[in-house]
């Protein structure tokens, strides 16, 4: 095999906590990227795809490990790379032409040569006639064309793309993908490797010669496999569908993330931090919707179908499915989702009973809600500051994630009336109805 262009050894990213712990964003990762390939990095949100891209391109410093370009450490070597961003990241105050010329200007290329190259590149991406327009006059698809032209104009050895088509509508994205692939296949651009970050499985399978699947918490490589279908690929061919199915299965296999019993951790040894239960960010309403749909469909369905029918990205659907699974309302296996008896009961219940069922399921399966519930019940005034739980979450998650975890717990807890929350004072308290009407829990001191 040829020499890799990029090689990552033990590459990791983590944040040091003030109390000495650390939050891992990306676990130590080894990775080699070879010339002549399109590599797609696939993974759910929060798996650190962009962080990995930023480390490989030299934009971000790894916390541990090293990146080598052509065998030389990235620290002293300036790689010839370009990046296409999801948000285009064009300079709104520069014209289309000036935007494309900007990297050439940075490379100290004279005005005449600069203009010639920029015009040629604009021509290549189909933007001739728009040279003097400002980005805000362009549609999203044309803006991304400018982004691509700006990236390609410096003839990068590696082209990084961070969800380049995600903010475009379906047809525009499809069109642009095809054109980019044409450029690549016809060797019209000197780029030797394209590295594409995406959460769209179909996009990855359409474009890539190799797919790397990232898992989350912490981000790590779960699978890495080649795609050997000939280009251009036919979406309807059975081989294509098989690859898609295979990828779906890998992506939707539940990741082990339950709370481990505490005795499992040995004392004295610096054992890896216990994994804290991570809530998938789904609202109770969405979970109910999913379960109703499943109940309607004889109890189980392929995730691929579900996502397709709901016109949702798997990235958006997955947390809902995972939440249903976490609550014991559904089971996930081999890319299929199956509703459980509890789930069916929930789907068929009326609004008030749903809350009761959700509450039972949540108290049984969700550790943070159980904690909150028991603390509230044992305190004589049945109320507590949210800081306590935020602190607990902060120890286990990055700042943003801890905030999202708390918000999700809040949604679930409020919906199922496990507690109520006053956002002004930041206090959690038992809802009054719990005290008056009574609850299934024998712990309630009012009873």
């Amino acid at each position, binding site marked *: 095999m040829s020499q890799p262009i990029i090689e990552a050894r033990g590459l990791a990213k983590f944040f040091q906590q003030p109390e000495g712990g650390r939050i891992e964003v990306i676990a130590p990762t080894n990775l080699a990227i070879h010339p002549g390939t399109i590599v797609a990095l696939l993974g759910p949100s929060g798996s650190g795809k962009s962080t990995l891209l*930023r480390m490989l391109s030299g934009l971000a410093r790894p916390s541990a490990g090293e990146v080598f370009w052509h065998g030389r450490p990235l620290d002293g070597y300036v790689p010839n790379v370009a990046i296409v961003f999801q948000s285009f990241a064009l*300079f709104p*105050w520069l014209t289309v032409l000036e935007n494309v010329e900007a990297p050439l*200007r*940075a490379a100290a290329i004279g005005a005449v040569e600069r203009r010639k190259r920029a015009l040629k590149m604009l021509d290549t991406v189909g933007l001739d006639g728009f040279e003097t327009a400002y980005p*805000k006059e362009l549609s999203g698809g044309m803006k991304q064309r400018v982004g691509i032209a700006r990236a390609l104009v410096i003839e990068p050895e590696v082209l990084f793309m961070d969800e380049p088509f995600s903010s475009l509508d379906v047809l525009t994205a499809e069109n642009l993908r095809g054109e980019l692939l044409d450029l690549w296949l016809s060797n019209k651009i000197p780029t030797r490797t394209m590295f594409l970050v995406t959460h769209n499985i179909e996009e990855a399978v359409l474009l890539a010669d190799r797919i790397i699947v990232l898992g989350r918490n912490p981000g790590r490589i779960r699978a890495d496999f080649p795609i050997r279908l000939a280009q251009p690929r036919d979406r309807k061919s059975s081989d294509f569908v098989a690859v898609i199915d295979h990828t779906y299965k890998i992506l939707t296999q539940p990741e082990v993330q339950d709370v481990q019993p505490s005795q499992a951790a040995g004392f004295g040894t610096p054992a890896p931090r216990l994994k804290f239960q991570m809530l998938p960010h789904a609202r109770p309403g969405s979970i109910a919707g999913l379960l109703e749909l499943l109940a309607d469909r004889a109890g189980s369905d392929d995730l691929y179908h579900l996502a397709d029918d709901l016109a949702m990205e798997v990235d958006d659907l997955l947390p809902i499915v995972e939440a249903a699974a976490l609550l014991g309302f559904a089971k996930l296996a081999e890319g299929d989702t199956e509703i459980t008896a509890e789930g069916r009961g929930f789907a068929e219940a009326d609004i008030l009973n749903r809350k009761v069922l959700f509450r039972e399921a949540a108290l049984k399966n969700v550790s943070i809600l159980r904690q909150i519930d028991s603390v509230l019940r044992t305190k004589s005034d049945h109320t507590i500051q949210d800081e306590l739980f935020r602190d607990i979450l902060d120890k286990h998650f990055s700042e943003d994630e801890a905030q999202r975890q708390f918000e999700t717990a809040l949604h679930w807890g409020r919906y199922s009336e496990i507690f109520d929350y006053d956002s002004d004072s930041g206090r959690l308290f038992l809802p009054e109805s719990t005290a008056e009407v009574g609850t299934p829990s024998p712990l309630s001191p009012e009873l």
Partner: protein
Amino acid sequence: MKRPLRIRVLLSGAPWSIFPAGGWSRLTDAFIFAAGIALLYGMVRVAQSWLGPFTPQVEISLSPTALPRYAAYSLGRITVAYGFSLVFTLMYGHIAAYNPKAERFMIPVLDVLQSIPVLSFLPGLMLAMVALFPHRQLGIELGAILLIFTGQVWNMAFSFYSSLKSIPREMRDTARIYRFSWWQNFTQVELPFATIGLVWNSMMSVAGGWFFLMACEMFVLGSRDFRLPGLGSYLQTAASAGDTPAILWGVGAMIIVIVLLDQLVWRPVIAWAEKFKVEQVQDRQAPRSWVLEILRRSVGLDRLRQQTVAPLGEWVALCLARKPAIQAPRPQRPEWKKWVVRGVGTAVIAAVLYAVAGAVLMMAGLDGSEIRQLLRAAGATFLRVNLALLLGAAWTVPAGVAIGLSPRLARVAQPVAQIAASVPATALFPVVLLAVVGAGGGLGVASILLLLLGTQWYILFNVIAGAIAIPTDLREAATIFRLTRRERWRNLLLPGIFPYLITGLVTASGGAWNASIVAEYFRFKGQTISTVGLGATISRATDIGNFHLLLAATCVMAAIVAVINRTGLAPALCFSRDQIQA
């Protein structure tokens, strides 16, 4: 071939097409060229006067024909001070935004400096500058300029700093991945991104600059009477002489200068800055300026740009861009440099500590009666400032809501209010005082009026902004539910404008405290009129050279303004954030 073309243009009927196309353009070019010459001439004259011999007591002529010259002098001071402010802003903001160590103290320092009453420094600054240039007019001019500078620079610096901090990460990544030179980064990323904030803050700052300039163009320090020829000294002299036509001429000239500045500088700049808006969609109602249109159409300017400015910029950019494709890893900062930085840092800290200790020692010399006097004065000014705010709110809240809710009214009232607001209140002080004293009132009443004059606009503009921000659907709901006028105010309008009103009041209060220094103590027709107040205490202490009282009073005022800013603004901002989220 040319002739038929020209005829067609003639027939097409646009009013100016009687001028052949080329001729019209040549006419505007000639005009722009003439304007450039005029500007140059003005600069030379101003510079001549600055470098001229020191004449502390310039005779101020009350003839209207002297007004253009005075206006030019005042404008020159403002312009130079603004230039200094801009340079300082770019450096301070840049360092604060990129050096985390420096940021930790530079931003709080900015906060403190913002609440210091600038006018307290007027005497010290003037004496120092005159001592520095004893034989040239330059000293006293520089004093005025530095004073304006300290009055206007802080909010600009803060605006630039926060703009730099909010450049989107992907935009920064783009500059990094393509390895923009610092120059390209500055001219193509940072400066454009910060332009809009800088423009609006510059407008505010320059308005504030006029306020201070008018106050410091003519002031008395002990037995010495400093006068700078300018619009401010003209108005003060005119009021002192009770010369009504001269007062009218002066106010008229002031308004003309303000309107011209607005039309010739700010409007074009705002319209031009439009392209720096970071938005994805085009705004339908972009601000326009006829001056900018003319400048953009000018063939001469275009040629100048293409043949001189553009190649020059190109040359600079290429010189500073990286030459080799491979950059050496950044060398470690040499040991001696670290020591230099540490040494300078220690020296600065030591100097500050020394100064603070000196100040404390000086203030320790205050006796009981002086402290009592200080407290009473602070109390009096407190009442006066708040009364002025109350009066201001009483008319600006209904007026602001009316303007904000009615686009038709806004079209008429907004520009008028803007012009009125930019006439520096200090320029009108002598005039107002003349009227009040003429009507039999004392400075106690007049000073409240004076404070009101300077600060009501902050409240008005904030209320207008608040009223505009009230969502239309809520207003429609109020109409559908047939809320009475009272209910409408209680449930919709007051809660809607509340955070804006608080912001306006807090800003106005800071301005009012500062203005009290000139509003409570006045030299008028050769005699001093004063009333009890912290501002009067500062002015009197200045006059009689009681420096420990001056220092103590200044510190008290700075502390009060800082506390008001902190306690008043924070809850208002929290409240507004909650409201937006709801």
